[in-house]
């Protein structure tokens, strides 16, 4: 069994609930397997409670007025959610919603462009043999390990030289290249695009780019959705890059915006309610996206073992 990076298996059926797994002979299952284990269930539920706690808390906290936040019992909800949203929306002419739109732009467009670049590169690496293939791939792979910090400052200085800092481009452009995305795309291409289908298309006279677009991309699609999600979350999470690149709060993504708002809260505690309401509103779309698409997060270490 080949073991690699966390890689969703392209061929595997989505298996959200963990149903439809290994099946034991029915009589065995009936005899011993079905007795529930309270210890393991309890441990798992405790873990779930730990992970949900801050989310439930922010839901409650956002419903409190600035005074109540520090005076009432932490898990006692109040009725000021709408007021809080109104206050937050009024802050600096609704700059909060601009941050949300910016985040969607950075993560959405950046993720999309990243998938296109990764898919093409991964396909090229998987389906052809050519001079320099090994060294190109090794260089790309080494990029996975380069810490963001080493890049952030020189990226800033280089973009400053061409006058691009404090623009949308300064956050968008560095987010497009994803060595990890290319790595994943290569695995998907190798595992899901059969060589004989490509050969057949060539014999029929199809151009290389047409084969990629019309045949390979649809076959790689489930994998490419995963690449998109990984990259989307990576950009959405990225704090250091926009924090360094951007000066104008009109360009901030939500993370940098909220961090600034929290800084102000240190001197104006009434801001804290806005910070918390902002945090809640920002994670709602993300959680919705996450729950809708979570079947694509089948991180499969054994992708190399999937025989197509």
């Amino acid at each position, binding site marked *: 069994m080949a*073991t690699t990076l966390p890689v969703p298996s392209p061929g595997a059926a989505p298996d959200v609930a963990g149903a439809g797994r290994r099946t034991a002979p029915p009589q065995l299952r009936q005899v011993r397997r079905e007795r529930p284990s309270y210890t393991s269930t309890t441990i798992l539920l405790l873990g779930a409670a730990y992970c949900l706690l801050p989310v439930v808390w922010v839901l409650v906290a956002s419903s409190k007025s600035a005074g109540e936040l520090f005076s009432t019992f932490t898990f006692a909800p109040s009725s000021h959610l709408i007021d809080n949203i109104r206050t937050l929306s009024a802050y600096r002419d609704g700059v909060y919603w601009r941050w949300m739109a910016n985040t969607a732009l950075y993560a959405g467009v950046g993720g999309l462009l990243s998938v296109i670049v990764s898919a093409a590169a991964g396909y090229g690496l998987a389906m052809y043999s050519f001079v320099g293939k090994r060294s190109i791939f090794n260089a790309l792979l080494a990029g996975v390990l380069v810490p963001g910090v080493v890049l952030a400052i020189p990226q800033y200085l280089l973009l400053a030289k061409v006058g691009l800092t404090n623009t949308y481009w300064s956050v968008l452009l560095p987010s497009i290249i994803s060595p990890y995305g290319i790595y994943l795309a290569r695995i998907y291409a190798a595992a899901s695009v059969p060589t004989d289908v490509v050969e057949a298309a060539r014999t029929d006279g199809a151009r290389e780019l047409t084969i990629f677009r019309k045949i390979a991309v649809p076959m790689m699609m489930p994998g490419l959705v995963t690449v998109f999600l990984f990259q989307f979350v990576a950009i959405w999470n990225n704090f250091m890059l926009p924090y360094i690149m951007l000066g104008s709060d009109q360009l901030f993504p939500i993370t940098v915006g909220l961090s600034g708002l929290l800084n102000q809260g240190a001197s104006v505690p009434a801001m804290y309610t806005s910070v918390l309401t902002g945090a809640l509103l920002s994670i709602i779309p993300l959680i919705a996206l996450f729950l809708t698409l979570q079947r694509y997060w089948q991180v499969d270490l054994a992708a190399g073992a999937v025989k*197509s």
Partner: protein
Amino acid sequence: MTALGRTAPVRARARRRTLAPYLFLTPAITLFVAFLALPIGYSLYLSLRTVKVSGLGLGAGARTEVWAGLENYVRSLSDPEFAASVGRVALYGLLLVPTMIALALVFALMLDSRRTRARSVSRVSIFLPYAVPAVISSLLWGFLYLPAVSPFYFVFHALGWQVPTVLSSRLVMFAVANIALWGGVGFNMIVIYTALKAIPSELYEAARIDGCTEVAVAWRIKVPIVLPSLIMTFVFSMIATLQVFAEPMTLRPLTNTISSTWTPLMKVYRDAFTRNDIYSAAATSVVIAAATFVLSFGFLRLLQNRAFSQEK
């Protein structure tokens, strides 16, 4: 069709085919060079330079960039603040990474056991924090650490216990580690769980019939098989640990126990943007990068040997 009529298009197609991989790779390579290779090279270059001030440092030409050799590295490595931040992150990593991987393994094993109930809801709940950006999760936990709003303090008071100040200088590292644990345990759990699911059940069906307990099956069969993924999640978490930045930066306004050089990355940020000393910052970041490379070298080898068995 004549032979001549056939070979010309065939040859043209063959030429297109040798060019095609390079065309597919052009956008990636261009971006890679512009946003990875060039910045790394520039970083190295800057780390070996410094600014020389002549006279009072006023007027054009008074400040010139000159060759510095390893001066920046010597200064960076001998800086007590840097040593302190490295020590802090090392301790933080020792605290966080084994805890996270162990918990992820336990959760994954529970998910994999048929006798466990409420599996799908737990799985989604534990994985959910992965979708929350570090800044937001630090913000939420930061508030949960504040005595005035924290539910933990309420419980402690109700029980009549002494209330620990989580954001005190003694405990703040645990506070930051907890945030990282919260955000990372679910991802690692999913990686290990997927590896567990790939094990054919026949492997331990026999052991069960022979009377092996669930714990024995988990410990003797499952854990050794998923060892590669444990190693991998370990290395990934280690790399992430070296780069800790967003969590302490977000917690800073809530406490005065986190200095501006609390982690190596924060020091790089401060040197570059508060002190305007990009040369030292570059040297420090090169040192961090080198450390990351050394630590993940084994991982890279693991990858290359095993990854592409199905390609010709």
